[in-house]
């Protein structure tokens, strides 16, 4: 149940068996079924979640009620509303399960205690957020600088899992395109081959 969490943790910062036991007591294992929410806009105090199994997406709703997907999370990823989590403010994101999920949740309370008691946890979180920042930077750069076809190819290389497990209309939303535009891009690319 905790396997992948600690495998990923150890890739960043190596923990002894005793240290793993120490961290473990702060984690909340949680199963989520497909279509259930981990958090909804307006929730407070929801924590961040590490994905042991399954897939989730984060999205915002615009004034017309349309969904705009901001992130996907698969096995080994961490997802949450970081602003809401760190500042204990109401969430602006919605996060729901695209598949049945097994999650490992870190509450704000656990996070604060671990930061205080365990320097290795602080290192882990720093590296996690650094990685997330780099990924965001790459995504933004791709979004604003590449023509559509190249953007699509870049995304397939950056997020191969996403293209296998997520429906096309959600990928289109994540790329800021309409489903029709994405479909045209895909058909142009396949003809070009």
């Amino acid at each position, binding site marked *: *149940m905790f396997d992948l969490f600690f495998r990923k943790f150890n890739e960043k910062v190596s923990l002894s068996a005793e240290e793993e036991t120490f961290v*473990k*007591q*702060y*984690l*909340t*294992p*949680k*199963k*989520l*079924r497909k279509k259930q*929410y*981990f*958090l*909804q*806009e*307006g*929730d407070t*105090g*929801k924590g961040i979640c590490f994905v042991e199994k399954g897939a989730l997406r984060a999205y915002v709703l615009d004034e017309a009620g349309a969904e705009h997907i901001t992130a996907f999370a698969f096995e080994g990823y961490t997802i949450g509303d970081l602003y809401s989590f760190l500042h204990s403010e109401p969430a602006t994101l919605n996060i729901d399960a695209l598949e049945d999920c097994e999650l490992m*949740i870190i*509450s704000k*309370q*656990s996070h604060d205690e671990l930061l205080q008691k365990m320097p290795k946890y602080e290192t882990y979180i720093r590296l996690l957020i650094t990685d997330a920042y780099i990924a965001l930077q790459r995504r933004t750069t791709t979004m604003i600088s590449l023509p559509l076809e190249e953007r699509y190819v870049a995304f397939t290389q950056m997020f191969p899992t996403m293209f296998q497990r997520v429906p096309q209309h959600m990928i289109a939303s994540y790329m800021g395109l309409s489903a029709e535009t994405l479909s045209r891009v895909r058909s142009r690319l396949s003809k070009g081959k």
Partner: protein
Amino acid sequence: MSTKQTIAIIGATGNMGSALAKTLSKGNNRLLLFANNQEKVKALVDDIKSTNKKADVEGIECPTNASWEADIIVMAVPFAVEKEIATRIKEVANQKVVISIANPLNENYDGLVTPPDTSAAEELQKLLPNSKVVKAFNTVFATVFTTPVIDDKQVDVLIAGNDGNAMVTVSELVQTAGFNPVVTGELLVSRTLENMALLLIQLTVKNNWNWQAGFKVLHN
């Protein structure tokens, strides 16, 4: 709209378990009901849905899975069975609120089986060291849940626990159930609460109160 919290009720078909299931199904909760007798669980689910079509409630065949999916776990099994259940849910109940409603009564209902220096709730906390055990609902009878008002007074639910956030969560559930929450103190106070339940049972039997009795802390 806030995200529904999932509540697992372990021992859902007993008097207290089913009373809690019926009342908590009225709030913004998703209920997972577990009991050994699956047919009784199904009957309870049907009963709840027949009175409240919107109720988000279902039976589940395994207490471990129920607790794994849950945000809050209600231990509605007799004290004698808690150890066995606790072993099965220990890992998945990590960091979660676990509500201890049991009163460790002896066979004759004239004493407690726990020694005076502990309580059912504290024993449960020892079995689930990483969970947030809260004593609640042990001083109210299942028969009072349909109308938690006696003699024109809203019945109190006395709560004890060590985690501040967990006390807030449980107080909200108590309100959903129509009772008045009274936060008493640390989990240690559960010794007093379990003895209060014993006293209430003895008084109710002695005076033929027909299980319509409860506590109300009067204050200015």
